[in-house]
């Protein structure tokens, strides 16, 4: 797909990006190959059992990732009735037919944020950074964090 900009940067040469001539203006335009990951895993606020999913607040790249990936796994704070989606279909970020699996994972984004439900747990992030300096510390931290996230619920 075409991408504006990139002129003057070393990145196109480094990445082997090519240009094509815009048939309408005659200008050269950089084009990048499509990213096609096998899976996108998206954490959302609400999903239904069919896989419809919606995000409150900012979706960042969720929409693009859901379209780029061959398959989507949705992890959701809450599972709601399909009727909830039917009342406001414009809020559905990922429709069910694109979703391979739905997993009910309350506080699934912890220690990061699922705003506005909960914000970043800075204390937990700092503890992770300190513990993850060596593999043993990381293992111990992950074991402890598993319990902590349950408690935090």
């Amino acid at each position: 797909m075409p991408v504006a900009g990139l002129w003057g940067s070393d990145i196109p040469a480094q990445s082997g990006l090519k240009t094509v001539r815009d048939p309408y203006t005659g200008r050269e335009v950089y084009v990048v190959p499509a990213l096609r990951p096998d899976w996108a895993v998206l954490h959302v606020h609400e999903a239904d059992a069919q896989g419809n999913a919606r995000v409150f607040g900012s979706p960042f790249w969720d929409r693009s990732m859901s379209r780029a990936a061959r398959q989507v796994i949705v992890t959701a704070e809450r599972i709601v009735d399909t009727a909830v989606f039917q009342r406001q279909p414009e809020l559905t970020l990922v429709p069910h037919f694109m979703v391979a699996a739905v997993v009910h994972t309350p506080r699934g984004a912890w220690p990061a944020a699922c705003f506005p439900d909960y914000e970043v747990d800075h204390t937990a992030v700092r503890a992770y950074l300190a513990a993850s300096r060596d593999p043993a510390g990381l293992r111990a931290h992950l074991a402890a964090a598993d319990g902590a996230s349950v408690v935090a619920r």
Partner: protein
Amino acid sequence: MSEPAVVDLMAVCLARLLRDGERVLHGVSSLLPMVAVNVAKRLHAPNLVYLSVAGGVDPSPPRLPWSSTDQRLTVGATAIFANEDFYDLCARGGIDVVFLGAAQIDRAGRINTSAIGDYDRPKVRLPGGGGAAAIMPTAGRIVVWRTQHTPRVFSGFTFFAHRPISLQPHSSAAHAACQQTILGYFLLILLSRNSSHALRSLRTIPRSKPRCPCSTTPSTYSRASPSQPLRNRPSTFSMSKPTLSAYGIGSSSASLGSSSSTPPP
């Protein structure tokens, strides 16, 4: 009154680069621009359109978060403008100012956020530029900011020599970007090198916003041609130095438009 902290002055300097009504974007790891945009919007630029990687349009968070990606930057927002949206907007010339961080800045205003040393065997592997390479030629102005000012950061830049700085004006957007880049870090380096002088000077900064003589409206600038990369172009534009007077520092003149720099052809 005690002297303000240098970092506060940096935020104020960045804020004063913004004009009322402009569309301004900052990305991740941009705490200082986040503060600057909020300062500008609360003081001299109430109609500034505030966009950020967090997605909120014109948020008004009661407290600023620890991260410029934090979704607290959607609190009070009137719309969610997701990442695809602002990249597309920038690509079609719809964003006036973007703040970019950099590990290194060179004398031509180019920035490095990829690697120090050979790309494949770098001395330091940097986090990468995100969308900077796409945004830099397409945004109306780029303000490159950096809180640490060392010779390693300003690679190839000789601040006190006042030698002509060659820019490549064939792309007016790139030209404006370069010039704004230089002006931006000119201010910041000034702060770090001689902070007491800078503090005195900065108090004289007028409230009027600087205007870049070579900046064009987003819809009219031309983009550089890929067949002639910027770095290989002949230099046909020079200015004696990025004028401090553009920002009212050490001079009563306020407008960059009155500086002696030659406009691009």
